[in-house]
């Protein structure tokens, strides 16, 4: 792919708490579909986004079974985005901040997620065409 760009994102929010997570995934999707190289440094609560133990549930208020509810799992979104990036000729490199993982007990992440430190984020920044930090509140 001609002129593939590299973008780095830093995320901070855990799943299910704020609209920022959804917007972040929308941005990652847009970049992945362009065949670009996308770096994600997950800091603080965002290390829970690819947590392997997320599980779907039913929705009794709406009378929906587990299957019918088809509840989103951010770990599935991360996996799907990794696949999409590859399919379009790019990549999605997801790094969880290791200390943030340790203090939250979120060590079990889906395959393809690696552990790192803020120094890894700095390497991502230096190697990218641009970087966007999405802060938490």
């Amino acid at each position, binding site marked *: 792919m001609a002129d593939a*760009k590299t*973008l780095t994102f830093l995320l901070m929010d855990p799943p299910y708490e704020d*609209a*920022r997570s959804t*917007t972040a995934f*929308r*941005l990652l999707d*847009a*970049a992945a579909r*362009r065949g*670009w190289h996308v770096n994600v440094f997950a800091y603080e609560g965002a290390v829970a986004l690819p947590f392997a133990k997320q599980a779907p549930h039913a929705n009794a208020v709406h009378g929906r079974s587990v299957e019918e509810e088809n509840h989103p799992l951010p770990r599935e979104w991360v996996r799907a985005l990794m696949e999409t990036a590859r399919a379009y000729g790019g990549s999605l490199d997801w790094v969880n901040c290791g200390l943030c993982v340790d203090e939250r007990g979120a060590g079990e992440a889906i395959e393809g997620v690696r552990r790192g430190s803020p120094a890894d984020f700095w390497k991502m920044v230096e190697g990218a*065409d*641009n970087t*966007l*930090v*999405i*802060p938490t509140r």
Partner: protein
Amino acid sequence: MAKYLLIESRDPFTSADVDAHWQLATSLAREGDTVTLFLVQNGVLPARLRARSHGLAELAGAGVEVLADEFSLRERGIAPTALVAGVRPAPIDVVVDLLAEGRKAFWH
């Protein structure tokens, strides 16, 4: 001059500091910089035509390109044809494209 992408995810009705962020966008434009303000999430709420907030029209008048995320508008039932003057609906793709162009970008 520099080119900026300011992403505004908050609304002035609940966040007192949104006004300062808008004013920064105006200041940058007045310095001669190219500025795009991309409204997303609740940041699109003041873009509704009858919203009691006039800052966005002033921003556009100062030369800031003001875009509102199409999905965020739809999610909140704000018709893309009934926006404050100077605000244009845009897909989220604009953000990644402007990032790829190298715009100095930060999220509020």
